[in-house]
């Protein structure tokens, strides 16, 4: 009985080292402060009704971004700990971390940055922008949207839970590659935390992918054909197709590892016929497309930003779309390049190497198209465009490094080296993150009603770019010196100065982050001066700017009709020619009701995951039954929508107009 209730969790597993105790106290303190503020301002009910149970993609998007930023901060703490250790731990000094602790930190760093920081920012931005850009009032499946968000939160909590409830985190690298992640080599609960956190949040990502896929295909405004969609919608579509295609592989792979660890099976063990090489294959069949899931939407953002700030239509729209589709398809056919060195023959390696190199072609085309877009434009050098220029500067070199790594012969030397680490950070930071920053700066006024401070945005950009080069060029050089990744200690003293410069680079990046935080605070303080209620602060081109800032909860009182690409640009032209808008007639429409079932279900999923980590099977059973009951209750609820009548809409619209012109 005791065993079923508490499983492996004993008094001794509770936090007892300085960093877990510190983490616990910090988390508890933060929780207490938040609770106190909410109670003092009497906002609990408001929080629950307006935000936590909301099915409005704009609200969900903002919540995604807040959680993702918290996780970005957590991942950055890991990064600085990794860098400090490597700057210190040379020769007779062993730094300040044990090997095991160091390995847990870089594992957590990778998982948190990929699954929770970047994915969170991305899905958040998609939630905010996609419905507005296609002229829809909501996503296709509002309940799945809130459920997906809360599963993502549950995963994020689970990955940090060892701070509070003890145990440790996986010390296996971010993909928990078998056989290192098997019981034989990792007997603790660390890998189990990894398994359940990723399983739960991965389900959330899958639901989000499905939702955007169906939304984009089925809910576009009349007249918006596929070839009239904004590029961000296109890349979100491509990204969603990839999510739906490959996240099931991740789920199955993790499930097989779970069976190995919990039921003594032998899918990936070294003994009894298990095949760890299969794990490496499966995890990268998900892992490589995942990179494009992260980067593709950024390409879409850059297309929007470049064409808006050049005040010119996107050059080579069709070829830009084809390039995105091409990348999507190819990204499914290159996974083997992550393990050329596992011993496959030259034919297999060379074929996968070449398919990888080919991805550089559509990527190059996109860059050329952006250049053509700027050519003979009226360029306004806003901070969003700065991020684009930073992207060109970093991504070009990162891409060439990628083409080099794609050639098996070179990869035999560079695989697992710091050169590789520098390469993929260039792609994820320079590609995905810079794009997300550009997007957040660009769309911020749409959702907040005021612009971010441009000057501080540009300062932050310079810190980031300088810091980025200072932090990662040393890693490229170290790779050429034969330094492998993930070293908690090294003997060659000539490496140390480079590691130290790398830390300094990170400090400069931190200055950039501080500037960004300052930017948000000052922008909120001075919001009156940067107010934008017109809804179109950049003289932009796509539908999302056709409504007010912030948009009403129903996005559009009347669904706009689309007559071409750059729908809003065309509307503005027409308005100039024919300034008397036709009298609008409102019609009733349906909107989804708020629902707490997403949060309930994810709560039970969290309980289930946590109980499974510690083998508390009774509690896990309760969690599982809870999930199923929630699902059934929700499935039988037939009144999930309410009707907004024409009169109500007319009233709301009038209020909105009065507010804008006040």
């Amino acid at each position, binding site marked *: 009985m005791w065993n079923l209730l508490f499983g492996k969790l004993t008094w001794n597993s509770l936090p007892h080292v300085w960093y877990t105790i510190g983490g616990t106290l910090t988390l508890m303190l933060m929780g207490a402060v938040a609770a106190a503020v909410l109670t003092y301002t009497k906002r609990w009910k408001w929080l629950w009704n307006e935000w936590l149970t909301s099915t409005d993609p704009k609200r969900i998007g903002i919540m995604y971004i807040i959680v993702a930023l918290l996780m970005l901060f957590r991942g950055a703490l890991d990064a600085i700990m990794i860098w400090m250790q490597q700057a210190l731990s040379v020769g007779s000094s062993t730094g300040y971390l044990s090997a095991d602790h160091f390995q847990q930190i870089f594992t957590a760093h990778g998982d948190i940055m990929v699954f929770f920081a970047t994915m969170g920012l991305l899905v958040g931005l998609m939630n905010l922008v996609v419905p507005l850009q296609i002229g829809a009032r909501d996503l296709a499946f509002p309940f799945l949207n809130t459920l997906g968000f809360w599963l993502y939160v549950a995963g994020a909590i689970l990955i940090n839970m060892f701070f509070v409830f003890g145990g440790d985190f996986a010390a296996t690298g971010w993909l928990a590659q078998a056989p290192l992640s098997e019981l034989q080599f990792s007997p603790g609960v660390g890998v189990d935390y990894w398994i359940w956190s990723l399983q739960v949040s991965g389900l959330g990502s899958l639901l989000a992918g499905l939702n955007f896929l169906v939304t984009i295909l089925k809910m576009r405004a009349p007249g918006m054909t596929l070839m009239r969609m904004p590029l961000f919608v296109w890349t979100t579509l491509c990204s969603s197709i990839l999510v739906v295609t490959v996240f099931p592989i991740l789920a199955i792979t993790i499930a097989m590892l779970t069976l190995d660890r919990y039921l003594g099976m032998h899918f990936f063990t070294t003994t009894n016929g298990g095949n760890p090489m299969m794990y490496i294959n499966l995890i990268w069949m998900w892992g490589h497309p995942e990179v494009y899931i992260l980067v593709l939407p950024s390409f879409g953002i850059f297309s929007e930003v470049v064409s808006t700030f050049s005040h010119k239509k996107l050059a080579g729209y069709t070829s830009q779309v084809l390039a995105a589709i091409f990348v999507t398809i190819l990204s499914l056919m290159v996974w083997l390049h992550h393990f050329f060195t596992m011993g496959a023959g*030259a034919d297999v390696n060379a074929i996968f190497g070449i398919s990888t190199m080919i991805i*550089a072609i559509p990527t190059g085309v996109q860059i050329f198209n952006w250049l053509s877009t*700027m050519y*003979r434009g009226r360029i306004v050098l806003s901070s969003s465009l700065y991020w684009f220029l930073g992207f060109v500067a970093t991504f070009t070199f990162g891409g060439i490094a990628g083409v080099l790594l794609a050639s098996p012969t070179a990869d035999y*030397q560079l695989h697992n080296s710091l050169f590789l680490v520098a390469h993929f950070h260039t792609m994820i930071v320079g590609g995905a993150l810079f794009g997300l920053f550009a997007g957040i700066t660009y769309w911020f006024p749409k959702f907040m009603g005021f612009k971010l401070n441009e000057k501080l945005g540009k300062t932050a950009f310079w810190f980031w770019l300088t810091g980025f080069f200072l932090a990662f060029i040393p890693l490229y050089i170290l790779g050429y010196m034969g330094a492998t990744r993930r070293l908690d*200690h090294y003997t*060659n003293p000539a490496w140390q100065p480079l590691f130290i410069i790398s830390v300094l680079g990170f400090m400069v990046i931190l200055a950039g982050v501080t500037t960004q935080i300052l930017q948000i605070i000052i922008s909120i303080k001075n919001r009156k001066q940067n107010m934008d209620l017109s809804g179109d602060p950049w003289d932009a081109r796509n539908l999302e700017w056709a409504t007010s800032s912030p948009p009403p909860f129903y996005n559009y009182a009347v669904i706009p009709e689309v007559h071409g690409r750059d729908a809003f640009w065309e509307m503005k032209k027409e308005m100039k020619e024919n300034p008397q808008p036709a009298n609008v007639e409102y019609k009733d429409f349906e909107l989804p009701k708020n629902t707490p079932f997403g949060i309930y279900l994810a709560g039970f999923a969290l309980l289930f995951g946590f109980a499974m980590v510690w083998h508390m099977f009774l509690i896990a059973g309760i969690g599982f039954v809870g999930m199923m009951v929630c699902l059934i209750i929700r499935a039988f609820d037939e009144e999930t929508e309410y009707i907004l009548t024409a009169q109500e809409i007319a009233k709301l619209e009038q209020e909105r107009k009065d507010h804008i012109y006040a």
Partner: protein
Amino acid sequence: MKHKAKTVIFLIDALSIATLFVILARNGNLQLLNPQGYVAQGQSTLLVMALVLAFCIGIPLILFTLFIVFRYQEGNNQAYTPEWSAGKKLTTAWWSIPACIIFVWAIIGWQSAHAYDPYNPIIAQSKPIEIEVVALRWKWLFIYPQENIATVNYLEIPANTPIDFQLTADNAPMNSFWIPSLGGQIYAMTGMVTQIHLMANKPGDYPGGAAEMSGEGFSGMNFTVKATSNKEYSQWVQSINQSANMLDTNGYNKLVEPSTNNQGKEFSQPNKNLFNSIVAKYMSNGNTIYMSQM
């Protein structure tokens, strides 16, 4: 004027940082660009070509981007064609330029992948030496079947002689065997035999190590490769052959136990069939599977 001053300061900063990087890079040993072995030489050619490519394509592209951005800024009164889009010709060019570069690079990739495939025996005048490598937690065991000796975390090889490494692992997660100066790198896995052929071009000491994270003792899985003359090599073999430190079954079982930061050790007369029996431990039917036969 203010703009110019800023640009100058920026350029000076960038140049001084670049100089610092060059000094630091020269101070350390850029092993991958300073190959000491046949395979590493071939591989470094590619690395140099990529560096050249990076500068020939990357820098002009960035400069061109900046040029366009500054030229067509609002207020510069340059031509403005808001409806202009890349036509057929330009689109074809945009696709063809990267396609041509990648086409050439793909040919290079294909040919080099075959020329420097780790399974390829290296053709040289002297007869190759076989070395069997076993990745353990957390050290490397090297068995010299022809010389009937074994070492831990230390390799001695004759220069200008091809070495045929056969690799497996025992009681250890996946590992990767890497000697950057001679050429890289191949996984060592339980129940599998992988292979890599390397050759040192001249005598010297070269660092080697593990490239795949394998747990607690990973960063201590280093060894030195000492490439010597043929004469010195046979003297070394002889001296170990005479030593009483034999690697019997008991000794091996002790070695398999996890341990960290092992110093170099030398053994005479390892068990005759040691390598094959290690591989066979993990096979259900006792047959060794060679990756190259799969």
